[in-house]
């Protein structure tokens, strides 16, 4: 009897593994599609509009102060931003928290030089179908989505560098 239940549990687990992951009905955010437009208030004191960044390679990073991997990734993004800023690459951080106070506090302790946008009503997060935290979307100079990174694994910065360099060569 115990063997049967064990087998069933294993089957349930493997079925769940093989079952397709939950995807949104309109799966429009994929490589090759134009990046959805948005304008948000920012840490620069004035709103930042994505359209204004056309002509630059843009890295949009969705993050939250309560998310461990997001906080781990920030110093790496700061380094990337400093390294490639002069070569036509713009980094933009989108904070997804409804209450920006926690994020503002964290940024005071750990400041970054690239602009932070505040998506307080989650409109842009929904638009970009943020499915994991953090979430990084890399756009080319024409404003087309080219790479999507869900989550942060140590070593991802190498991937970001390779992809940025590939886009710079275009």
């Amino acid at each position, binding site marked *: *009897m115990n063997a*049967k239940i064990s087998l069933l549990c294993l089957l349930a687990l493997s079925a769940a593994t093989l079952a397709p992951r939950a995807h949104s009905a309109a799966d429009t955010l994929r490589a090759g599609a134009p990046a959805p437009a948005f304008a948000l208030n920012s840490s620069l004191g004035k709103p930042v509009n994505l359209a204004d960044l056309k002509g630059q390679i843009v890295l949009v990073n969705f993050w939250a102060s309560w*998310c*461990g991997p997001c906080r781990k990734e920030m110093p790496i993004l700061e380094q990337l931003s400093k390294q490639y800023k002069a070569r036509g690459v713009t980094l933009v951080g989108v904070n*997804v928290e409804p209450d920006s106070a926690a994020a503002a506090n964290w940024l005071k302790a750990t400041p970054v030089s690239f602009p932070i946008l505040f998506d307080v009503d*989650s409109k842009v997060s929904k638009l970009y179908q943020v499915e994991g935290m953090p979430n990084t979307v890399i756009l080319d100079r024409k404003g087309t989505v080219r790479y999507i990174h869900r989550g942060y*694994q140590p070593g991802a910065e190498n991937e970001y560098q390779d992809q940025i360099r590939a886009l710079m060569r275009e």
Partner: protein
Amino acid sequence: MSERRRLTRLLVGAAAVATLSACAPIEPWVKPYEREHLAETVMSFNRDPVSATYIEHVYESREGARGATGGVGGGCGCN
């Protein structure tokens, strides 16, 4: 164990398997960017494992019941 109970358990198991496969197209109703409360320490099923292990040991040494005291998952859903 009686045949009926065995059959019931098998059916429950099969239903679970079917449900898991059938539920795949359902969209997660709490988005990753909405999980700020779930990520807080007070919402963790177990904040301090060393303390929880100890107090469970104190109870189990004096009581007849044992088991099913775990809590898995929750939290911030990062990565």
